[in-house]
C-alpha cells in the first residue's frame, strides 16, 4: 500500500462534523442567496406590474411592504442581494488575482458574511 499515509485523513460526510473553511461557507451562501434571489424574481415582477398598473395597485404594494410580513421579506431580499453582491465583488477581485492568498481570502470572506446582515438591516430601515 504505497499511499497508505495519504489515506489517514477522516472520510465522512457528517454535516455536523465537517468543518468547512470560511471561504467555503461564503461559497455555499453565495449559492443559497442566488437561489433565493432567483425565487424572488416572479414576486418582484408581480409587484412592479401591480404598482404600475393602477393607483390602487401602487397603494396595495406600499401597504403590503409596511406589514410585518412585508418588512421581514424585504429584509430577507435586501440581505440576499447585499450578501450576493458583496461576495460577487470579492469573486471578481479574486478573478484578477486580488486577495488570492489564504489569510486575505479568509478575512474578506469574514467581512462579507458579517457586513451583509447589519447593512441589510440599515437599508431596510431606511427604505421603510
Amino acid at each position, binding site marked *: 500500500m504505497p499511499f497508505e499515509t495519504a489515506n489517514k485523513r477522516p472520510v465522512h460526510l457528517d454535516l455536523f462534523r465537517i468543518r468547512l473553511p470560511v471561504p467555503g461557507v461564503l461559497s455555499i451562501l453565495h449559492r443559497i442567496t442566488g437561489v433565493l434571489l*432567483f425565487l424572488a*424574481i416572479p414576486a418582484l415582477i408581480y409587484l*412592479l406590474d401591480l*404598482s*404600475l398598473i393602477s393607483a390602487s395597485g401602487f397603494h396595495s404594494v406600499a401597504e403590503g411592504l409596511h406589514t410585518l410580513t412585508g418588512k421581514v421579506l424585504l429584509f430577507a431580499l435586501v440581505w440576499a442581494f447585499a450578501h450576493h453582491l458583496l461576495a460577487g465583488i470579492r469573486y*471578481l477581485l479574486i478573478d484578477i488575482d486580488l486577495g488570492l492568498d489564504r489569510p486575505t481570502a479568509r478575512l474578506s470572506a469574514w467581512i462579507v458574511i458579517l457586513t451583509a446582515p447589519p447593512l441589510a438591516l440599515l437599508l431596510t430601515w431606511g*427604505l421603510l
Partner: protein
Amino acid sequence: MSRKLSGLGAWVLQRATAIYIGLFGVALLGVMLVSPPTDYAQWRNWFADPLVGIATLVFIVSILLHAWVGIRDVLIDYIKPLWLRVSLLALLALGLLTWGLWASQSLILVRLV
C-alpha cells in the same frame, strides 16, 4: 445540444451581467433611499421616461441571463438523472422567458397608456 452560454461564454456573460446588475441595483437602492416616490403619478412617470424604462429593461434581462447561468450550474451540480435535468432546464428557460415578457409588457404599457 447548443454550446452557446456555456464555458467561457457563460463565464463572461455571468460577470458582465453581474456588473450591470450591481451598478443598477445600487443606484436603485440609492434613489429609493434618498427620494422615494411620493405618489403613484411620480412612480409611473419614472418608468415612462425612456431612459429609465430601457435601463430597467436591461436590468431585468441581465438578471434573467445571470439567473440562467447560475441556476443552470446548480441544476447540473445536484440533478443527476439526465431526463430530469433536461426537463428542469427547459422549465427554467421557459420560466425566465415568461418573466422577461411579463416585465417587458408592464414597462411598455406604462409608456403607451
